[in-house]
């Protein structure tokens, strides 16, 4: 029997850990964790609430969680992602909405780029440009990245799990 590619169909929810050594296409929902030795693709209506570790990741839907990839992480124009991205290369298309920290392998930086613990303990207020409190819905403020168009991001009730998910920023807010 031919090996069919792994597909999580639309309307299907996987709640728990998914791991494997092949490519996976997600058109439904995953909550939990994803660990793949392969390529992960997400459809436009897909949603992943999980930390993802894969060889490469293509996001067209909503992903809340950190992504770690050996190769490329590519956020398409319909993507909405909250979480840290760590990869050899990160590509963000015009129109994508993103909030988090990006670390590209091989890029030296002065700040500690791994782990949020270091920042949290720093007494200096890192609260730079946050006018409103926790649920800052406009991803444009977070990163000096290729500026994701706010218009597209607001058309959908923004990034819902934003409040609970952000480790670095929300820690200051609760004070």
């Amino acid at each position: 029997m031919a090996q069919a590619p792994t597909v999580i169909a639309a309307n299907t929810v996987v709640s728990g850990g998914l791991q494997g050594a092949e490519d996976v296409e997600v058109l439904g929902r995953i909550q939990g964790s994803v660990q793949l030795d392969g390529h992960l693709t997400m459809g436009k209506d897909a949603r992943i609430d999980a930390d993802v570790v894969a060889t490469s990741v293509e996001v067209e839907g909503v992903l809340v969680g950190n992504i770690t990839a050996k190769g490329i992480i590519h956020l398409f124009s319909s993507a909405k992602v909250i979480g840290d991205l760590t990869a050899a290369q990160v590509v963000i298309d015009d129109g994508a909405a993103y909030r988090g920290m990006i670390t590209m392998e091989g890029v030296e930086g002065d700040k500690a780029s791994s782990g949020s613990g270091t920042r949290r303990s720093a007494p200096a207020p890192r609260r730079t440009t946050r006018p409103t409190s926790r649920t800052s819905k406009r991803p444009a403020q977070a990163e000096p990245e290729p500026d994701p168009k706010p218009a597209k991001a607001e058309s959908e009730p923004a990034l819902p799990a934003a409040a609970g998910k952000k480790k670095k920023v929300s820690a200051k807010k609760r004070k």
Partner: protein
Amino acid sequence: MANSVIGSSIVIDGEISGDEGLIVQGTIKGRVQVSGGVFVENSGQLEADVEAESVEVGGSLVGNVVASSRVEIKAEGKIVGDVKSPRILIADGALFKGNIDMDVGR
């Protein structure tokens, strides 16, 4: 409608639920609850309770099964667990251990 396919190297530890059917070539530990059919292929290994419209097992399923239409255990298949379904087909060579309850009247 497309079925979900769980490839042979995939291990899912948790629950799967949905409206689509499910083709399992890999391993699932936990629970499966779908409105469609569940097809466990030869390489499929389920350690899960399954609730589906129909269940076809060509691999291994350890867990209880509740199907609203039918359950089939193929010649290479194995079920260890209780089965509740209005219809059941156990092929020659299949392995089964558990109770069968064909009365799905509520």
